[in-house]
């Protein structure tokens, strides 16, 4: 039976890089174009997951566990960030009954 790193290595590394870059760019486009705070938020998570995927791929290609350890750190910290971010969004929803970031322009002079 093949071990998991071997299975991962059956696909060339360049493909992983392309896939992650594509996911990352979709995330960036989402952040820049969407107006709903939750969707923007999901786009940011997509960027982080592109990073996770690429880290895991590099890590098994190089037989070096530190990349996968980094993935755990990213997942844990992203969860903490989500908690704070959702709290902020809820706070805004309570005040203006909307999460459209286009409405938030009080600070523009």
């Amino acid at each position: 039976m093949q071990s998991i790193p071997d299975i991962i290595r059956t696909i060339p590394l360049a493909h992983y890089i392309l896939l992650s870059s594509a996911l990352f760019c979709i995330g960036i486009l989402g952040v820049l174009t969407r107006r709903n705070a939750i969707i923007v938020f999901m786009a940011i998570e997509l960027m982080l997951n592109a990073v996770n995927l690429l880290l895991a791929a590099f890590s098994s290609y190089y037989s070096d566990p530190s990349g996968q350890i980094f993935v755990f750190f990213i997942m844990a910290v992203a969860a903490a960030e989500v908690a704070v971010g959702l709290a902020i969004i809820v706070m805004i929803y309570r005040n203006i009954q909307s999460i459209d970031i286009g409405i938030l322009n009080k600070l523009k002079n």
Partner: protein
Amino acid sequence: MTAIIALSLFGISNLFWGFWFPRKVLQILTLLFLAIGIGLTAMDWNHELLWFGNMFRTTNTSINFSLIIQLAAFLVVALSRGFGADDEHTHPAEYYAILLFSVVGAILMVSFDHMIMLFVGLEILSVAMYVLTGSDKRNLKSNEAALKYFLMGAFATGILLFGITLVYGATKSFYISNLANIIAATAPESMPSFLYIGVLLMLIGLLFKVSAAPFHFWTPDVYDGAPTIFTMFMSTVVKTAGFAALYHILSGVFGGIYSTWVLTIYFISMLTLIIGNVTAAYQLSVKRMLAYSSISHAGYMLMTVSAMQSSSTSTVLYYSLSYTLATVAAFAVLILVSEYQTGRKEKPEDYSSFEGLAKNNPGLAFCFTISLLSLAGIPMTAGFWGKFFIFSDSFNRNIIYPVILAILMSAVGIYYYFKGIIAIYFKNGDIEKIEVPILFKIALWFCTIATLVLGVYPNIVKSLF
């Protein structure tokens, strides 16, 4: 390093003491904790050590940066009052605890030796700052600032992480010291091209955090919307930590491929200087002016980072210290004046609410003047020497045009800083005597006197670094 553990424990204990003690006691306790942190940090002086599986390195440079950060946090806590004191929904214990946690993050950011530590430190600092920015829960401006800061901060973190990943893919290591060796040992042709993309993305991620143009657009809104005391914290602690991390990365890891990133940094620093200074000149609100001024100071600091001289480290440190002292004093006076003017003027943070401050409050007017003079870089203040060291470092590297531009832009800076001084001394207003709490007074005068002393004897500190 023990300072990190101590401050984390103190932060947690602060949450519990909030049940029993009023805000005044908590403030004194937090000051005590930060003083202990400063002492523990200083004890590591001249002991170059590695901690946490070689992921955390204490050097004299990192200790100096940690000391500046903790000093700034100390001053901010000393100047904190209220958090909306009469509101039953404010929780001072939580705010002080979050401040302590964010200081831990900042210390991690200045002494990392592994990318995980950089990332974790950055996130501890940022997540704490998102909470503090939005701490004025019923104020829509504060809400908006928190959401903007959060979305932009998380976005920048994503970019930074992608950069770290690509650099890891090219070098197979996360350790700063290994990375430098691998990059130095490999011929540039045999390096995968995505190393350079990774370096660029990492730079973009960090430049977002230090609010350099063209990644500065969130800064004025966030600084303006956040409660002033936390704006003070952001523009001193977060900025110093961000620059220390940027400097560490550029000089330590990517020093070997200097030529690939130096032009980008020049371009960005010039753009930052132009945008920061020119836009600041148009502002009517002092708080927004200080936000843009913090952008322009990022431009000056980027110049040092790119000069890469043997004296650059001490220049960055000296500049951070002088900038911290002046900014804290300026924001402190802004807090007092805008609190006094709330209800009296429509926009309590504008220049117009400072008019006639000198008549009944000569002390406050003096402190504000000295801090603005220092930010503008007038001789006899610390800010002058900060700029002087930066320009001389750049000249030593034969960087001429950015320095000329920077000198021109300091002239623009003098215009908008002096607008504040003119409003204080030469305009008529009816500000009565403003009551200043004792702790507030001590911190304010400490900043002012330190600015003057460093302006006359810069070597006291410069030789230490």
